[in-house]
């Protein structure tokens, strides 16, 4: 049975199908972002146009500001989410205590409940503490869906981590910071990397939360994108989507390199 399977599933075909599935939609987005008068049944656009790209580069579109906002917020959210998740993950992975399952459940609750409920409920809560309409409030709000993912991935890293290594390093005379730098962090680095990617991409794609809690004062890329997506201007939507995908493409490329090297 396994022999037959091995013969029939040529890995090259699988790779080819997978690459097509990834690249075809991207290729379509690129073509669409330059297309003009592209209608069924034409296979390729009859005319090309810079309309979408020149609009996005125009400061009047607000895309450059939105891009910067998205980037700064996502980076800060990533750093904060990991700092918050590290102690929680360590505690859950390395210690047994009463109510551990309850703590885990509470930590995961924000991603188990529907996003719209978290967003609207979060908005009500943030309003009560006067925490709306600012950068800080948007960053705090983005932590709600990101921290659970970071806790999950980092718990996995700590489960595979042998704490005795820390003690050994200490007996060999390493200082606490040296232990952190040369023992603990290298062991959990892949976990930190994965949770950073998660946190960044989740923050990067927040729409309703950013809009409600930022009050529209903090305009990020999804806020600009959704307007065009809903209005049906496919050319501008395609160009914006490509910009929106840049971090994902970078992360995929980095991961691929990481795999090749290791």
């Amino acid at each position, binding site marked *: 049975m396994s022999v037959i399977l091995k013969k029939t599933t040529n890995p090259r075909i699988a790779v080819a199908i997978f690459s097509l599935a990834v690249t075809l939609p991207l290729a379509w987005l690129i073509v669409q972002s330059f297309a003009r008068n592209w*209608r*069924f049944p034409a296979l390729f656009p009859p005319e090309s146009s810079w309309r979408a790209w020149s609009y996005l580069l125009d400061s009047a579109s607000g895309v450059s500001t939105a891009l910067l906002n998205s980037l700064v917020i996502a980076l800060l959210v990533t750093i904060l989410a990991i700092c918050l998740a590290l*102690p929680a993950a360590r505690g859950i992975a390395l210690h047994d205590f009463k109510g551990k399952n309850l703590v885990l459940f509470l930590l995961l609750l924000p991603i188990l409940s529907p996003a719209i409920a978290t967003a609207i409920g979060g908005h009500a809560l943030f309003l009560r503490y006067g925490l709306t309409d600012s950068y800080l409030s948007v960053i705090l709000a983005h932590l709600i869906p990101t921290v659970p993912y970071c806790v999950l991935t980092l718990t996995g890293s700590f489960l595979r981590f042998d704490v005795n290594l820390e003690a050994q390093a200490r007996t060999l005379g390493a200082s606490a910071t040296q232990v952190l730098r040369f023992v603990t962090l290298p062991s959990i680095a892949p976990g930190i990397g994965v949770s950073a990617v998660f946190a960044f991409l989740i923050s990067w794609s927040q729409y309703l939360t950013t809009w409600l809690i930022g009050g*529209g004062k903090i*305009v990020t890329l999804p*806020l600009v994108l959704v307007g065009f997506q809903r209005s*049906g*201007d496919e050319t501008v939507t395609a160009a914006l989507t490509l910009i929106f995908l840049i971090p994902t493409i970078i992360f995929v490329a980095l991961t691929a390199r990481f795999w090749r090297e290791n």
Partner: protein
Amino acid sequence: MMIKNSLIFLNLIFLCLVISACQNSKTNVPKFTAEDLAKANWQQIETKARGTTVNFAMWAGDENRNRFFQTNAAAALKQKYEINLNIVPLGDTAEVISKLLNEKSAEKNENGSVDMIWINGENFRTAKQGNLLWGKFAEHLPNIRYYAAEAGRRDFGTTIEGLEAPWQRAQFVLAYDTARFAEPPRTIEKLGEWIKAHPNRFTYIAPPDFTGSVFLRHILFHFGGGAEKFQTFDEELYKEAATKTFAFLNEIKPYLWRKGETFPNSTKELDRLFANNEVDFSFAYGASFATERIGRGEYPPTVRTFVFDSGTIGNYNFLTIPFNADNPAGALVVINYFMSPEFQIEQVRQIGSVYPHNLDALNDAEKKAVAELPRGAATLSEAELLEHLIPEADSEYLERLEKDWREKVLLNF
């Protein structure tokens, strides 16, 4: 141990950040209210607004319109009133309403992030019912005189009472492609015949989509004896007209695109079907929509629009101020400027919208400027639009029709 401590330290810093953010400084300047507006003269308002920033929440899905507001409109406001216009882009106006509802229940009565909103219809009704609006202001704006009196009375059957100011005019039109046929059917009866003679070539947007719903109201008016009868809700009239409407819709259903088993969900989807030559008609609540689509290269240049002989529904859309606006004086000045002939003429020039004013209120120079405005090839003439303009129905009809359509047409196999 150190590792844990340093992490605890980091999290403590974080906690301090949160706490410091919570202690928002509260300003104790008394709020400028609609009562103050009634007592003030306009000059005082303009002085008060000078040097401020106005956050304008508007639907932002159109490249030309965004560009016009971010550049031309913002520059004019800066130059004339030293006001900074900041656009808060919306994917859907309902989002700003749910934000305000949340803020209302949390008693955030000041320092709101939005000073003015482009609004109409159901969103206005929700806002009015939820007391989400700043107050009666429209009659105090100098430029209200350019609008016909009925423009400020009712918005989809909800009485306005000065809570929002009329801004732009919209009218339902249908689009067809002259490259496919020369003459479109201009009555509901002829449209019905056309649909039966051309199976698979017509569809309409499923209510409760705004545009799908307005299409149905034209059929309701047709079978109910005209728009005038539908200004206040009458159960008997509704039942009679709706029965005929649904009979008509079920009769044409098997001849619709995909045999009426499925309907497009939005203007966007109907547009795509029309542009891709899968159906022969598109429609929208906006007389210049086909011209805009041709300009964007989505429709072929041979597309034209038409209205029904019995008329098409038209209304205004409005500008309003939310209850917790931080800068109501600034919003009033911007709204008043947006209602001026100067702004409206420029807007028609830049984005091809329809001129909304009562032309009798204009001076000779303004009349001349309006008469010389360019008009997109696919936009009907002002005279033809006005001649075929019919009013909206009471919103009760709208709700009933949307609800019953689902049961009597969509789920009727």
